[in-house]
């Protein structure tokens, strides 16, 4: 992997999908090759601070909403949290 060797997780595929953007669109907006966006999405490249900030500005989100050093919780689980096995379900 090219980069500093530490895995950086990101939400680029989700953000791109929900806004209907192609890799070419994002790449052109932040000034990189479209394959670089692909490598970022696959987690095979850790972006520089400059590129991370450019992507954050493009999506109008804070950097920590796009990149993280720990895996992101899936959005479905954030919206509809599942009870952990063994915990009682709340009564209605």
């Amino acid at each position: 992997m090219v980069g500093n060797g530490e895995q950086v997780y990101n939400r680029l595929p989700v953000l791109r999908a929900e806004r209907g953007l192609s890799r070419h669109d994002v790449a052109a907006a932040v000034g990189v090759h479209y394959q670089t966006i692909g490598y970022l999405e696959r987690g095979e490249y850790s972006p520089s601070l400059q590129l991370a900030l450019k992507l954050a500005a493009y999506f109008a989100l804070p950097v920590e909403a796009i990149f993280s050093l720990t895996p992101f919780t899936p959005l479905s689980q954030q919206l509809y949290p599942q009870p952990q096995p063994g915990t009682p379900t709340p009564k209605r």
Partner: protein
Amino acid sequence: MPAAPESKPLWDPISRVEQRHRSARDQTRYYNHPRWDWARRRLVRRGLIATYLVTLGALTAVGWADALRRHVPGYLTGNLWLALFVAILVEQAVLEKATRGLFRLRAGVLDERQRAVRDLGYRYGFRILAATATAITIAAVWLPVDRLLRGTSRLEWMAIAVAVVYLLWMLPTMVVAWTEPDEPALDDEGPAPATPAA
């Protein structure tokens, strides 16, 4: 009364800066053309490296054999050497397109990842070169190299020099072509633009 259209000057020179920009754009488009996507798969890239090394070895062997015969005119090896040399040039061109011209394009037209990959190619290439040079030097201490080299003619040295120059020239490209993973597929993409992005 409508205004007369502005007349163009007879001589409209393109500035050197603009010329350089156009040239850089053209080169980027050339090395990133989708026509060469088949060569950008990892397996194909590795196959290309193997073919390149075999051709380079054959070129050296034929050149050496030719030198041993003191370059007899009309001898078969001369034509064979030329054919192998042309093959080397073609293979080089394909390898450069397979790596999207990382070592041909100016740093200014590459993005941060491409520059990092290029640096990695130079770094590993230097390590390979340093290890090989050290191994040869150590071997020279133990082997009767002076006796082996004493009889080497100028033509034989030329055959070796061609191989060494082309190997060193392409070493960083080969390192990158060997180590880079497969490029992300465009399965989830919309139609790609007519001209590839820089």
